[in-house]
């Protein structure tokens, strides 16, 4: 019996075998592929994010909504580019930087990343403190306990499972959507403001634009999305699922952001109430949304902050370790990967300490670190664009021209906004000094 003649035998045998296959039932398929994209962006709606969206809405009403529309387009493309870099090269962002740019550039980029991400972690711990203060727990208990819990969950526990719980908790942020609907906004004007750009001459408008950019497109999200794609071994052949994941994650995150703005714009803005923090936002919204909303807002904030407080230090330590060739990974022992563990622990301990130290002005520090992130974004985008247009690395998966142009426009807008902001703060600083003398 010659083998090739056995084609029917091959077919019948193959037909009998139970091959593992992806379930075709739509909702389950979606749930199964929702992963890195959603985590990266959900972690973005953290304490800093909520505070920014809520106070932007309270200060300027619905007129800032168009900024979010603009940012959503840029955000989706940037996240997709990050994931595609991972899928096409099979390498993390920092590996690509080290191998394709000079050592000096690598060190420069990694230092910015470390600094900016420490700032993010500080704001996450501030978020943990604020959310639990809403529930009546002092920050001197919540922050140290939070830090220890996160550390143990990542180092000793099953972090992936816990991550999903945090993700679900941050789902409580959806309650802002109900708050927005309860506030009975003028939906016509919402629709108009989403597409009609309007610029306010108010100097604070700049500050809010920069803050909105910085908190919506945080640089760590791209690094995380790319390394998660590499980690899962996703290749270009199954990249379409990752695209859907990225799209859903980014849209979900920005939808929540838009509803937070609508909620505060239609309640606090007409009443003339100004707020500065996420906790303020929650408290201020209670009269409009009901006492129960306070708990939902608090849990949502807690979930998003815990999620990011775990993901950001981990991503940062991975990125740095990969760039400099140190052993990394939570499946390694302390002896095998000492630098990785030291860095990871250091980021968490330092951030928790900063949040608790009474001597430092947290708000000023957070603003400063947010600026580092704002500066980091265009630089990181530059590197990403360079890499994503490198034919050697990406093959046929390089950026298309339209894609490049939109990302470059976003990059220019971000850069200009950041520099205007920096310029105006230097002027303010100068004025306040001359005012004193």
């Amino acid at each position, binding site marked *: 019996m010659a083998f090739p003649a056995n084609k029917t035998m091959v077919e019948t045998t193959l037909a009998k*075998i139970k091959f*593992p296959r992806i379930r075709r039932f739509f909702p389950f398929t979606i749930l199964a592929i929702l992963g890195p994209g959603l985590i990266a962006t959900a972690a973005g709606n953290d304490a800093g994010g909520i505070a920014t969206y809520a106070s932007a809405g309270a200060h300027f009403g619905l007129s800032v909504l168009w900024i979010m529309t603009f940012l959503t387009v840029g955000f989706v493309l940037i996240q997709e580019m990050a994931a595609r870099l991972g899928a096409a090269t099979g390498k993390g962002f920092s590996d690509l930087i080290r191998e394709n740019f000079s050592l000096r550039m690598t060190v420069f980029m990694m230092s910015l990343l470390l600094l900016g991400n420490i700032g993010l972690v500080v704001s996450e711990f501030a978020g943990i403190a604020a959310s639990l203060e809403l529930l009546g727990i002092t920050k001197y208990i919540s922050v140290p306990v939070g830090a220890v819990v996160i550390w143990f969950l990542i180092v000793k526990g099953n972090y992936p499972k816990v991550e999903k719980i945090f993700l679900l908790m941050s789902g409580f942020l959806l309650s802002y959507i109900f708050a927005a609907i309860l506030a009975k906004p003028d939906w016509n004007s919402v629709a108009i403001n989403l597409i009609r750009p309007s610029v306010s001459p108010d100097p604070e408008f700049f500050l809010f634009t920069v803050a909105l950019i910085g908190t919506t497109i945080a640089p760590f999200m791209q690094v995380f999305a790319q390394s998660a794609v590499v980690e899962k071994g996703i290749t270009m052949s199954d990249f379409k699922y990752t695209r859907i994941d990225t799209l859903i994650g980014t849209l979900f995150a920005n939808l929540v952001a838009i509803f937070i703005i609508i909620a505060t714009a239609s309640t606090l803005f007409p009443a003339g109430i100004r707020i500065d923090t996420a906790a303020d936002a929650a408290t201020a919204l209670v009269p409009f949304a009901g006492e129960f909303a306070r708990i939902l807002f608090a849990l949502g904030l807690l979930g998003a902050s815990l999620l990011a407080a775990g993901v950001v230090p981990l991503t940062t330590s991975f990125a740095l370790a990969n760039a400099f060739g140190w052993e990394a990974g939570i499946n390694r022992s302390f002896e095998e990967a000492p630098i990785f563990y030291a860095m990871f622990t250091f980021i968490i301990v330092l951030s928790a300490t900063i949040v608790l130290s009474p001597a430092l002005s947290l708000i000023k520090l957070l603003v400063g670190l947010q600026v580092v992130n704002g500066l980091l974004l265009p630089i990181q985008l530059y590197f990403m664009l360079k890499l994503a247009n490198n034919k050697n690395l990406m093959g046929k998966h390089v950026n298309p021209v339209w894609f490049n142009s939109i990302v470059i426009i976003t990059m220019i807008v971000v850069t200009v906004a950041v520099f205007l902001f920096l310029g105006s703060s230097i002027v303010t600083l100068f004025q306040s000094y001359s005012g004193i003398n």
Partner: protein
Amino acid sequence: MEVYLSELLGRKITNKSKEAIGTLEDLVVRELDKRHPPVSGLLIKRGRKKDLVYIPAHDVDEMNTKQIRLTTDIVDLTPFQRRENEILLVNDMYDKQIVDIDDRRLTRVNDLLLEVEKPVIRLKGVDVSVLGLLHRLHIPSILGILKHNIVDWEDAQFLGGQGQVKFNVQYKNLESLHAVDIARIIFEGPGYKQGSKVLAALKDPIAADIIEELSPKLQKNLIESMKLEDVADVIKHMPPDKAADLFISLGPAYAQKVFPLLNKEDGQKILALLSYPEHTTGAYMTTDYLAVSADLNFEEAIKLIQDTEEMPDFAYYIYVLENKLSNKLVGVLAAHEFLLAQRRSRIESIMKKRPFVAFPHDHIKKTIRRMYRYNISALPVVSKSENKLLGIVTFRDAISVYLPRRWKARIRQVFTNGFSSEQNYG
């Protein structure tokens, strides 16, 4: 004299009559697979916007951290053109990943250690320390608490880069590691893309071992990026049961494409294994075993085993068949019984008759109980009617029924890194 490459770069190069002719830009190496490869030449930059110039290493008179002097005044000023298999140390090797063979880990080239012993300059080792990084950046180290960490070139494996210029990298050093470690290193570090390039350059049997050790998802990614012929070549080196497992993770469409490329015998063996339903002993069986016929004597049997092309992974038992032509199982010999046997004795007289067997449609758990009860580490699987030997099932393979979905726990753990969370291999 030992010197770091970073201390030489940018140094002034003077000719015999002490005229400065340029600065050092890079070093060229040709025989990277040597124990300590010699530097074949220097690349010199002669000022801004000028092409690089090549100077053979034997023209170098003196080379230290202060100066580089040549023995000659004659320098060939034709611009440097890169030829095949020339590796530029700065361009191709700095910042790239290498495998530290002793520690079985991936790391990066922070600096390179050279040995200058007139008239040859050799590549001695790779500096993977933080101090090496600071050296490159010309940042003085604080208080001298940091130490260099040099991996000797003998114990390092360069993985190649992604540059336009192709050069062949020999993976001799890498091949000395266990397949599990190679799999972890080449897919965890450089990513599956470069990993599959490395894999393609390894010898087929080693590549087969590595693929066997990968998680189903990685297997799938990897195989799909390989050429069909290469896949068939690698599968030829796999035991049929491993190949069958591989086909299950690849899916029916791909399996149909590869089957015609396999030879008839291998293909039928794999197909036979694939046709057993889940949870039967047959599905856990391998057809990779040692067998001799009963009518041989001890010496002939030894000769037969010695001539076996590829030894099976599990060879603790030697199965005895009635004769060369029939596959009828008549006895079994454990390795220790075989070792103690008289040289002239016939196999028939030393074998254990009526061995314990399992049938292909027995539930695998029943077979496990049987092995456990009689303290046997592998059972022959025979056809119920004719007692024909179909394959064997080892205890190790059998207990994988208790692992989630026959999931290769060992490797999966190696790959579960950081924040990976998906384990649903369907």
